[in-house]
Structures are given as structure tokens and as C-alpha cells.
């Protein structure tokens, strides 16, 4: 039974909205600071963290006893990054969190990597009981007796990985055994050892000899889920590179290139912009790469570098709005893409409070609409779908960041300053 038939026979899971955090407010009332800019589940799925434009890291915990349906509650938060000033370039460095990655938990401690444009930090959050010594007057030496004041989650900054990127960091990704991580900015990818902060190794550098010849920037980079020597790098020209760290120390030349031949017939003014990949991840089983450009999701098989196994248009009516999108600059928005734990489904966001869950073969595409009354509004999008998008189509309510639980069918979706959970 081939993949295609199997997918058709499997019923598309029924998703329901389970929780949300946030209120319905007008766009102008949303404080810019609170806009969620990064979102990540931890490796077990018991915790979720999000980062916002004010540099805060907020952690949620799964409190549900029911193992098949998680329920999240606010746990703690910390101020991860603050605004800084770069003296050499006379520029302000924004405190907005660009990406978050969890390391495997050890004991009772949570380890989280966060990054803004320039600095990566490793935070440890541990549950500790804060005790105080009961004052005792004694003439002989006595060891103090302690009483518990409270139990709480104490964050501590474990490491700061210094400012070693020339451009803005867009992603960090940890390898499967947690010893190394990569950080990617517009033109380079650096490899770090978690425990060493005084140097990093540059593995990919796309900077051309003459800076005016610049034609391609890096938009995202991620490690393979199980092989800690493979990384995927997505670029603005729609090209994916998969580099094997064991083959050579510098990977620009030896990376495998996954690129589709351009079809000159379908080129138009917007092609260059919309072919830019906003995100790319390996599927959970490590066999596929899911990449998202502005209008489509492309599924690549690692064994085939010539063409993707599937190119799935997410919401075709957007094609007719390209001019408007260009004018309001929404055409440059970067949406994230996530894999389901079974590797058969893909999650990605869109405008107008919508997000999509598609299956890997492209046969089914479900569009969900967020709302603040916990109803689940979903409609299937068939192939060759068209509907006119009226003036009520809201480009401001966009879902840039979304994440799939690592082991269960539960997704977290962020829209501006609100967070929604859907589960099966």
C-alpha cells in the first residue's frame, strides 16, 4: 500500500480548540511588546515556552493528568534579553526574542536557549525551595536549622554566547544529543559547543567576495532530529542546503542542494519574493524536509534533490492579492512550519486568524480560524480552491509562529499576543 492510498484511507483527525490565552482586542490596542515572536515545546511536550518582543521568556506547564490531552497553565517567566546598544555600529540591538530551543531536561532543571538579534543565552530554570535559617542564639557551635519559606521556579543564566554574528540571528537549533547547537544569521551558520562560550566554528558562509553581488540570504537553519551531523539551511532563493558536518569543516561547497529548476514561463514580478523560504524543518522521522515559501509547502525526500515530492499550495486565493500584500509589506512575513510526530502532517500559519494543517501528500488541507469563544472553526480546502477575499480579510492578524507537540497531536498557535491550543 503506497503512501497515497494510506493517507486517503486514514481519516483526517478531528481537531478541537482546547485552550486559549489572551483577549480579543483591536490591533491598535495590542501593545507591541506583547507580540509573541517565538514559540517552542520542550523535548517532552510537558512545557511550552514563548518569547515576545519585550525580550521576555514565558513558560507554560502541562497540568493535565489525562495523558492523551495536555492542558497548559502559566508557570513562570523571566526577562531573557534587554535592549542593548552596539557601540561599534552605533545601532540599537532589539530585545525581541527571535528563536527558542529547549535542551533535554536533566533532573528537575529546564534548559532553554534563547536568542535575540545578536546574543544567544542559555537559561536554566529549576524548582527550588527557598529556605531561611532560623536564628538561634547559642554559645556552642551549632549547625543552623532551616525552615522553608516557599517553593518556586528560579531562573539562572547559565551561559551567554557572545556577539559573534555580523548580521541578525534568525534561528538556533540544538543537535540530538544536546552537545552542540547551530546559530544562523543572514549569511552564515556557526557551530557552538554548549559549554564553550569563547569561540564558535563557522560552518557555512555565504558572503560573496563583493558585497554588492549579494543575491541570497539564509532564512532558517535546523538540525536533523536524530543524526547530529546533518543540518538543513533554507535560503531566500528557495534553495535548501543539507550539510553533513562529517564530510568537511566548511560546508558551503559540500552541502547537498535541493532546488527545483525554475520554470521561466511562470515567472512574474513577485516570483523572486515569494519563492523565499521562510522556514524549513526535517520531518520527525528524518526522512523528509518540509519547507515553506510564501504560498506553498514543499515536501522534499532526502534522497531526491531534483524536485520535491509534493508542492502543496496552502491557500490559493492569496495569489490574487499579491499586489496588496506587496504594498502592505505582508509579502515579506515569515511563517514557521512544523512536523507532526508521525511525520504525516504539517502545521503552518497564515493571515486572517487562519492556520493550516496539511497532510504530507497534499491530499488534505484543513484551514482553521481562531476565535475567542473556543469554537473550532475548520474547513477543508480542496485543490484548486478559490474564494474572493473581501476587505474583511485581516492581514494584521497573522499566525507567524506555531508549534506541534513532540509526541502527541496537539498544536500551539500564536497570533499577535494570544496563544491558542488545539488537540485531537
Amino acid at each position, binding site marked *: 500500500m503506497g503512501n497515497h492510498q494510506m493517507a486517503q484511507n486514514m481519516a483526517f483527525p478531528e481537531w478541537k480548540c482546547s485552550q486559549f490565552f489572551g483577549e480579543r482586542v483591536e490591533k491598535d490596542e495590542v501593545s507591541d511588546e506583547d507580540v509573541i515572536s517565538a514559540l517552542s515545546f520542550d523535548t517532552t511536550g510537558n512545557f511550552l515556552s514563548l518569547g515576545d518582543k519585550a525580550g521576555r521568556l514565558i513558560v507554560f506547564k502541562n497540568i493535565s493528568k489525562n495523558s492523551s490531552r495536555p492542558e497548559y497553565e502559566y508557570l513562570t517567566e523571566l526577562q531573557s534579553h534587554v535592549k542593548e546598544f552596539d557601540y561599534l555600529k552605533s545601532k540599537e540591538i532589539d530585545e525581541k526574542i527571535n528563536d527558542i530551543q529547549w535542551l533535554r531536561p*536533566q*533532573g528537575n*532543571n529546564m534548559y532553554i536557549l534563547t536568542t535575540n538579534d545578536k546574543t544567544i543565552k542559555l537559561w536554566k530554570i529549576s524548582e*527550588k*525551595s527557598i*529556605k*531561611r*535559617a532560623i536564628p538561634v542564639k547559642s*554559645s*556552642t*557551635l*551549632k*549547625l*543552623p536549622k*532551616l525552615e522553608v519559606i516557599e517553593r518556586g521556579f528560579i531562573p*539562572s543564566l547559565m551561559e551567554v554566547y557572545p556577539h559573534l554574528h555580523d548580521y541578525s540571528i534568525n534561528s538556533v537549533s540544538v543537535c*540530538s*544529543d*544536546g*552537545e552542540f547547537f547551530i546559530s544562523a544569521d543572514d549569511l552564515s551558520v556557526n557551530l557552538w559547543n554548549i*559549554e564553550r562560550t569563547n569561540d564558535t566554528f563557522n560552518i557555512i558562509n555565504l558572503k560573496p567576495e563583493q558585497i554588492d553581488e549579494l543575491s541570497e540570504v539564509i532564512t532558517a537553519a535546523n538540525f536533523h532530529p536524530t543524526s*547530529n*551531523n546533518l543540518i538543513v539551511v533554507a535560503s531566500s532563493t528557495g534553495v535548501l542546503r543539507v550539510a553533513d558536518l*562529517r*564530510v*568537511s*569543516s*566548511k560546508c558551503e561547497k559540500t552541502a547537498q542542494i535541493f532546488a527545483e529548476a525554475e520554470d521561466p514561463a511562470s515567472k512574474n514580478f513577485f516570483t523572486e519574493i515569494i519563492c523565499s523560504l521562510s522556514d524549513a524543518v526535517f520531518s520527525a522521522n528524518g526522512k523528509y524536509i518540509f519547507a515553506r515559501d510564501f504560498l506553498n509547502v514543499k515536501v522534499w525526500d532526502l534522497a531526491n534533490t531534483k524536485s520535491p515530492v509534493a508542492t502543496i499550495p496552502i491557500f490559493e486565493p492569496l495569489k490574487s492579492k499579491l499586489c496588496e500584500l506587496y504594498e502592505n509589506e505582508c509579502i515579506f512575513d515569515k511563517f514557521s512550519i512544523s512536523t507532526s510526530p508521525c511525520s504525516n502532517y504539517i502545521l503552518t500559519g497564515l493571515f486572517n486568524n487562519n492556520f493550516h494543517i496539511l497532510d504530507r501528500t497534499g491530499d488534505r488541507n484543513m484551514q482553521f480560524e481562531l476565535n475567542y469563544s473556543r469554537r473550532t472553526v475548520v474547513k477543508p480546502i480542496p485543490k484548486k480552491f478559490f474564494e474572493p477575499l473581501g476587505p474583511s480579510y485581516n492581514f494584521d492578524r497573522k499566525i507567524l509562529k506555531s508549534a506541534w507537540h513532540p509526541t502527541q497531536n496537539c498544536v500551539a498557535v500564536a497570533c499577535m499576543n494570544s496563544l491558542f491550543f488545539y488537540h485531537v
Partner: protein
Amino acid sequence: MTEPQSVVGTVIEDLKSDNVKRRISSVRQLPTIASALGKDRTRAELLPFIISELIEDEDDVLAALAESIGDFLDLIGGPAHVSALLPILESLGNNDDTVVREKTTEALRKIFTRADVRKAEQQILSLVRKLATGSSASAKIAASNIIPIIYTSTSNAAQGELIGLFTTFTQDESSVVRKSAALNFKDLVKQPASDNELASIIRALGKDEQEFVRIYFLDALVNLARASPTKQPTLIVPQMRSLADDPSWRVRYSLCDKLPEIGSLLGKEVAKKTFLPFYVKCLQDTESEVRNIACQRMGKLSSVLDAEDVALKVLPLLKTLAGDSQVHVRAALAGGFSGLAPLVGKKGTNDHLVPVFLTLLRDENSEVRVACFSALDELSKVVGLDVLSQSLFPTLNELVGDKNFRVRVSACDFVAALAKALPDADFTTRLSKVITELINDKVFAVRDAAISSLRTLAESKGSPWTERNLLPLVLGQQSQMNYLNRMSTLFGLTVIVPFLPQETVIRQVVPVLQALSKDTVPNIRLNVGKTIAATKANLRGSMESIRKVLTILASDQDSEVALVGRNTLESFS
């Protein structure tokens, strides 16, 4: 000796202070607290306190605790009580933080070398067992750190169990545990163990898919080769052979890096057969880092290569390497290839090595040119300097005139090397001009390096030569317009006066010091004082005049000059 009660009391209180730094300093003084409490109370009260209260503390505090615990053996009544420390050590060993674990391993090493492991064997074994069979990776890593430490002191039966546990680590599904096992294996192999047990571990590690496991494994193989030479043919050499074909460049890099050592351990016959093809491939490897290390090691491979091999296999590759696209490969070549000279002899050097040298000398990158000069010594020993000197001088002049000051600093070293090798006449004509230029450089670092090179020259050439050649150079600076250059005279004198004969000092040096002590720039006068202080031993012949100079300085307008003058005068009396 006991500290006053109140002081110890404060330290005890600080064990739970709100301020982390005070807790850390308190924990560092745990030995003091323990000796104040006495052995029995330490065992009865302090240790339980540590277990219940301190163990939950921050990692920094725990790291300090691990450090202190290593010294606790005496404080609890001697090695017989080692089992009382085991719960604390187990808890620390389980900790996620690497620094805490490392310090714990150190503490364990301290404790177990002194403790009677046999007596406490059961408890120690159960500690290791608990850690090894726990679910957390950190516990297993801690266990793999401990096993090499206690292995030799345990009974045969226990040793068998320890090796068994260790073997499970090498096959653990977590790659971090396997890496730690591989890392610790190199200490484990130093101790005698049966072939069978080792063989299974070696097989598992050699095939591991993690490249770092294989790299650490290589270290272990080297240690094993050193410790048990008899095992080499069956166990070690085949494993090393397969690492030579490894697809991961980092493994090939490590192997090439250690090749000289491996060669001397395995003996030339075996080394040649196993590794000569590998080395030749490394010189042509697609990965530049591998080519780099191969070039760096080139001169040190006499344990693996002999003259014929070099001539047949290595020399043909030199030309391509000299034109390699990567700068650091060419620089490594420049540094490493001269070691081949003794192997190939005069004709071989003339025919093959000198042309490569001349190509590298003309390289567009100054780093490469600079690296060439270190090759000079070896080459000149075999072929003599005349052949090389014709090309050397133009290059030297280029380096001395380079825009980058660091290059000019390196040039100073070569000037010294060249001057050492050249006969006198050549020096006066060519090198003295170069040295003068360097002493007059705008950048202090260059002037400083030039003057230090004078010291090397004076040391190697001796007194008369120094007087003839270096003294005029140094003294020539004293009438320069820029005071910085006049300073060079003083710095230079400090360096070469120890090498000059007494009359010269009296006749030529003292008048200069007198003249400069009246210089208008205070810094110069200050340095006259310093120079006199530094060359005190050589100025004994002209105490009168020197004292006069110092007296004048001591009453100088500038307070610093006066201070130096006074201090130096005092030191003379």
C-alpha cells in the same frame, strides 16, 4: 589549632546566607568547620546537614562543595570512614552540571587513592552500581568517570563487574554516555585487564557511528599501545587501520595529528606498512584542515617514513602543496617541510626542498613568508646558507617594510636568526641597516622586538663581536630628534652592556649616560636612572661618575626622576 568559636560560628551561619557568594566562601571553609566540630560531630551532624540542606543548592555552591569534600577524609576520622562520604559523593556525581561532575571526579580521585578501597568495596560498588543503572545520563557519566579511578584497587571479582558496567556504557543508546565512556576508556586501558574484556569494548567503540566516540577511542588506542605493546598486532593495529579510512574528516585529522607518536610506539616496520599510504592521502585530502595537519607533522615523521619513501611519495607532492589554495595549508607547509631535510640529504634538499622554499618565500601572503624563516635553520644545516641568502635578503627587506606591524615584529626574529648564521662582513653591510630600520620603527612593539633580538645576537656572538657591531648601532640613536628613538639607546644599552668589556663601558657608555641625563625630556632622564639600576653590576668600574650622575638626577625637577635617582643611589651604597 582551633579558630575562635565566634568566627567559626559566623562561617556556619553563612552556610545558609541569602548571598550566594557568602555561601560559596563558607562552603570552601567546610574543612575549618569540620575541624572545629571535631571528628565525631562532623560525622554525626555536619555530614547529614550537607546531605539534607546543601545538596539542593546552586551549582556554583555544589562545585565548591565538591572541591572541599576531597579533603574530608582526615576530618571524619581517616580512611576507615570513607563510607560516610559516599552518599554526598553519589548526589554530587548525579548532578547535571559538568563543572560539578568534574570537581566530584577530582575529589573521588583524591579520596580513593587514600582510602582502603578493599574494605569499603561493597559500598563503593553499590554506589557505582546505583549510578550506572540509573536512568539519567549524568549518573552514567559519573559512573564512567569513577570506574577507571577505583579499578586497580578492587578485587578481581569486582573488576569483572566494573568492566561489565563499563561495557554497557559503550553500548548505551545515549550518545553522550558513549562519548563519556570513550573519553574515560583511555584511562581505563592504562591498567591491566584481560584481553577478552577489552576486545569487546574496543570493537564496540571502533564501530560507533558518532565521530567523537571514534576520536576519543583513538586516544585510548594510543594509550593502550603504550601500556601493553604485546597487544598491538592483534588488537590495536587493525583498529587504527580502519580509522585511517574513516569518512569523517575529524577522525582523519586526529589520526594524522597523532601519527608521530603512533609511529614511535608501533615501530617503523609496522608504522610504515599501515600508515604510509594514509599519510600520503592526507597530504592530498579534499578537506583543507587535514592537509594542514599533515603539513604540520611533516618534519616529525622520521618514525614512520624513511628516506626512500620520502623521495618517492612525499617530495612529488610538495610542489602542489606550495601552491595550495588555502593560506593556512601553505603556512603549515612552510613550518613543517624543513624537517625532511636531514632525511633526504644534501642533494635531495638542493633539488627538491630549496625550490619549494623559494616559492613559499615569494608567497603573496605574509604569514607564509614569515613561517618560512623558521624553516631556515634546518635547511641551512644541510645545505648551507649561501644558496639561500640570495633570495632571503629581498624577502627580508619586504617583510621589514610590511604595513602590518606584526609582520615587522616577526621579521626581528629572523634578523637575529640570519645574523647568527652569517659571517661578520655580511652583517655589517646588510643586516645592520635592517636592524637600524627596525630600531627606528614607528611602532613600539617593533622597536622592542628589535632590541630583544639584540640580546639573542649578543649571547650567541660574544663580546668582541657585540662591541664591534651592536654598540655603534645602539649609540647611533642617541642624537635622534624624536625622544622615542633616544629611548632606544637606553633600552639597547640595558640589553648589551652585560656583554661589553669594562674599558668600553667606561670609555663609551658612561659618557652617553652622562649626556642623556641632561636631556630635556624627563622620560629620558628617568630611563637613564632605570638603565643604571639594571646594569649596576657592569658599572662598578666607574662608580664616581655614575654616582655624580645619580646625584644630579636625585635633585631633578621632575619628582619621578628624582625618586628613581634617589632609589638607585641608595641601592649602590
